[in-house]
């Protein structure tokens, strides 16, 4: 357990600011707790007295958080005359924990698809972890576009209290990413009986078969820790677009890719043969309740 108020330094590279916005819409009492528990030393979008030079002069940083994709090409992006890569190399050496906040920082995200600059990467592909002597854990990836504010808070508090957090194969905290976005979706019953949503934004039906929902193959807890404490995409009638996975963003995200009417991908870890047999059987039954409007 860290006795002092741990220092957080948040840097931004190529980003839309989405993760910052997300953090600022955290539950207010949780956010207050964060500010009271940690020393939020630097954030480029939040007015503080600290400058980037103050960051560079620090001897030690407890938590280095990066939002946005990284490039070493100064023509495309630079901060105070230095490339993001150079800046990160300096700052990361002082850091005990490094956290990539969001899909862009984790693996380049949408920016990595920019063809004019082939040098856009995530943080873990930029830094050489062997050179980071102070680092206590591998670089942590908080994937998501954006990241849920609670995922940032949970990671910071866990590390402050316990010093380690267990990570999955993609270096994401297991406790946050072990389940699927599908778990806890209010449409699970429609999924089971293969009743499809007629379109976006309705309360009834599942968005898997036509609207491209990636809930059953996307690791996140969106439907268990709700957004703004009230809702999620899939509950509201918008398909999960799989923003926490490493193939995000994919093409045609609001369509289910099919081969001759058969979904080309089936829920995570389920044998396709078994899945097709069960759904074929489920479709045989017409359940009145699930084919009616929920609120007449």
């Amino acid at each position: 357990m860290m006795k002092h108020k741990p220092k957080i330094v948040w840097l931004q590279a190529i980003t839309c600011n989405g993760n910052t916005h997300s953090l600022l819409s955290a539950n207010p009492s949780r956010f207050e707790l964060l500010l009271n528990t940690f020393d939020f030393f630097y954030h480029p979008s939040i007015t503080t007295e600290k400058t980037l030079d103050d960051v560079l002069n620090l001897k030690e940083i407890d938590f280095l958080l990066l939002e946005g994709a990284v490039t070493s090409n100064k023509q495309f992006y630079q901060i105070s005359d230095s490339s993001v890569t150079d800046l990160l190399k300096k700052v990361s050496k002082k850091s005990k924990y490094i956290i990539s906040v969001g899909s862009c920082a984790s693996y380049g995200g949408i920016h990595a698809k920019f063809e004019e600059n082939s040098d856009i990467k995530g943080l873990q592909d930029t830094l050489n972890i062997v050179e980071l002597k102070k680092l206590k854990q591998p670089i942590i990836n908080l994937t998501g576009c954006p990241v849920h504010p609670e995922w940032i808070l949970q990671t910071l508090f866990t590390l402050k209290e316990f010093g380690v957090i267990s990570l999955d194969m993609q270096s994401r905290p297991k406790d946050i990413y072990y389940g699927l976005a599908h778990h806890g979706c209010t449409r699970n019953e429609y999924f089971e009986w293969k009743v499809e949503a007629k379109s976006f934004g309705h309360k009834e039906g599942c968005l898997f078969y036509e609207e491209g929902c990636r809930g059953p193959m996307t690791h996140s807890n969106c439907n268990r820790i709700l957004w703004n404490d009230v809702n999620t995409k899939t509950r509201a009638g918008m398909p999960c677009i799989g923003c926490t996975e490493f193939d995000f963003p994919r093409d045609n995200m609001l369509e289910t890719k099919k081969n001759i009417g058969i979904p080309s991908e089936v829920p995570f870890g389920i044998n396709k043969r078994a899945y097709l047999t069960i759904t074929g059987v489920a479709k045989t039954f017409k359940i009145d309740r699930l084919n009616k409007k929920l609120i007449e």
Partner: protein
Amino acid sequence: MSTKELKKNNIIENALKLFSTKGFYNTTIPDIAKAMKMSVGNMYNYFASKEELAKYAIKYSTNILAEQLRKINHMDISSKEKIFLFTKLYLENVKNSPEIIEYFLRVYLSNREVFAQGCEGFLCVSEFVTEVMIFLDEGASKGEFREQDFFSAFSMIMGCLGGFAFLSGEKVLDKDLLEYSDNIAENIYRALKSDDET
């Protein structure tokens, strides 16, 4: 397989022959018992009713096809070759055990009321339908088949094969059934193939 299951299958095989030649309603449990050289009372130890037997029989007969198609699906050959192989196996079934396909056409498809409870939709034929799905899905994902609705593709295959079994049952074909195999397979393939395939 337990002895009870073996016996059950044996009863089904005999029942298939009777159902497919005499029809569902003209076949009685005593008829089947007689063919089995069993007492009527003992028959009921295996199947509670003629309807139950009919439902088991449809699963039994389509599972034979499902198993054949599953084996083909696992083979490392093109989808076109799979069609040719499956068509051949199917026609061999029609030739060697006509009761299986006849039962499907003349009992299952013709007496839907018998199967309304517990065998509706895909319930009793799901293993076979699943294999057709897997087959179409793989062909389309490899670009060998063009995109189309599942049911239009499904009925293309099964309509064609079923139609031929019917013609064979009616004894109107002038050549040996298997001589038509490659032509039928070619027709099915052309109906499914993608425009880029030759």
